[in-house]
């Protein structure tokens, strides 16, 4: 394997191009008409335009991407995250063209991407799952009885959903039947599959996930991440490791993720997501992401493993370069997602031109981004501009270093979520780790007010 084509855009494309270059691979970046001027295109050895601005006709166009890879003789395709990263048909099409897919096989993606099948696989591997239906439920009467047995509130989830989409919370039996029919119609429209399943709502749960690596024979974990700070089910701030996690719970949690990887013969990097109940110290499987994740750098910062390089080596049929006993947690890391959104205007997205970029320089600070001064952020894709990642020997040191880094980080020209992170970094509840998956939305009602006043005074 001598070359890799990057089938993605934005900060992750930049990250993959850099990692591939460090391994001595020739890099090919595909791009849409809206991304001709992007940093990844500038950094890559070659670039191929695959279509117009619309993602459906470019970054989601399987035929165009495979054809581009053929035309430049790419040996492998890295899908990044989002777009086609978890599309089993894409993985199959890449393999069928005689090109390596940097990720698991199409059949693994298909198995783990189906919520119901993944839950079964988890159960079979001995991984605890959230109390709920055994697979899909079609009969509304049976579903209602089940919901009453589990106890309200319950979630109705689309079997083909994911990433926080296709989920409804129902609080009582009276509302259940109506919601069930609506959810089915909605799932059919959104995912082409009206299949549903039922799960108990774990109140005040934390979202904790375990990073796994597999080469088909050897399987390791790279410990866990804490991703409870979410808005509209999208992660906003991530940490590694999870704080206040008892040693014994961490051991069981990570071992269960490795067991699941082993049971399906996993190849590549993946993440097993769990809900963790702080009170009962129980954890429950939610889903598997069969790709690199946005928040992978926090794991890299505490383990020293370059996960993207590791993925590329696995795709080149090399065995895992790390053994479980070599992987240890060193310190604490936090990542803030910096989005082109105005936190003071209900997170209205805001494309536009970057007229000033100032990035803190410190060996404990990393800023993964596709920005440069003069770059125009296009309106056609998601709003992620970059990720500020900070490491400290302790969580306390990490938080204070994060505040300094956020004060230094300067992105001019468009509103960003930097002020949100500045306020979070000095919040006493965040410092104490008193949060769960529904903390942030409640906090936003009051927590940003002081930051806004401070900014107005500064003006």
């Amino acid at each position: 394997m001598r070359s890799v084509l990057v089938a993605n855009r934005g900060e992750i494309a930049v990250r993959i191009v850099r990692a591939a270059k460090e391994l001595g691979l020739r890099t090919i970046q595909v791009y849409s008409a809206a991304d001709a001027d992007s940093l990844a295109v500038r950094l890559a050895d070659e670039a191929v335009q695959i279509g117009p601005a619309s993602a459906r006709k470019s970054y989601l166009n399987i035929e165009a991407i495979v054809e581009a890879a053929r035309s430049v003789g790419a040996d492998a395709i890295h899908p990044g995250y989002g777009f086609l990263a978890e599309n089993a048909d894409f993985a199959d099409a890449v393999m069928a063209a005689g090109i390596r897919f940097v990720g698991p096989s199409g059949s693994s993606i298909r198995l783990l991407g189906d919520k119901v099948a993944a839950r079964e696989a988890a159960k079979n591997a001995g991984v605890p799952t959230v109390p709920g239906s055994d697979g899909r439920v079609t009969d509304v009467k049976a579903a209602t009885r089940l919901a009453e047995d589990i106890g309200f509130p319950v979630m109705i989830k689309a079997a083909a959903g994911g990433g926080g989409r296709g989920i409804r919370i129902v609080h009582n039996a009276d509302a259940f039947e109506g919601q069930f029919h609506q959810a089915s119609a909605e799932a059919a429209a959104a995912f082409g599959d009206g299949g549903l399943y039922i799960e108990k709502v774990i109140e005040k749960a934390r979202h904790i996930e375990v990073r796994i690596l597999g080469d088909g024979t050897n399987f390791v974990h790279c410990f866990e991440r804490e991703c409870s700070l979410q808005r509209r089910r999208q992660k906003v701030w991530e940490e590694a490791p999870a704080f206040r996690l008892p040693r014994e719970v961490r051991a069981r949690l990570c071992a269960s993720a490795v067991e699941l990887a082993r049971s399906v013969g996993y190849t590549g990097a993946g993440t097993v997501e769990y809900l963790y109940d702080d009170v009962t110290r129980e954890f429950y499987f939610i889903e598997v992401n069969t790709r690199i994740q946005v928040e992978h750098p926090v794991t890299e910062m505490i383990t020293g493993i370059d996960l993207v390089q590791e993925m590329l080596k696995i795709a080149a049929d090399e065995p895992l370069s790390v053994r479980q006993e070599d992987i240890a947690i060193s310190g604490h890391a936090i990542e803030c997602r910096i989005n082109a959104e105005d936190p003071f205007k209900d997170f209205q997205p805001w494309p536009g031109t970057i007229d000033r970029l100032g990035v803190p320089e410190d060996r404990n600070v990393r800023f993964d981004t596709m920005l440069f001064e003069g770059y125009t952020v296009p309106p056609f894709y998601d709003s992620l501009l970059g990720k500020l990642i900070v490491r400290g020997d302790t969580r306390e040191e990490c938080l204070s270093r994060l505040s300094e880094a956020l004060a230094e980080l300067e992105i001019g020209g468009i509103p960003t979520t930097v002020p949100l992170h500045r306020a979070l970094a000095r919040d006493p509840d965040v410092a104490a780790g008193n949060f769960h998956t529904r903390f942030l939305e409640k906090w936003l009602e009051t927590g940003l007010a002081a930051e806004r006043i401070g900014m107005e005074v500064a003006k």
Partner: protein
Amino acid sequence: MSKQEIRSQLPGVFYRKPAPDSPVYKNDGDSVGPDDVIGLVEVMKSFHEVKAGLTGKSIRFVAENEEPVMAGDVIAEVEA
């Protein structure tokens, strides 16, 4: 006859339908009122309604469905 223009306030992708398999909000030749939704603009994966903002007898779309628009681009013309 006087002609007025409906412009996009936002840059993004213009859609004439609420969902891919739904009918269009308005056909060429339809009349419009100020609060009528005539399309959506998707900006960074969030969808914003475009309202006519005026009254007219007949609308004619200039922007194509699912094509990029810039802020200030004309989406449709309306005959009073």
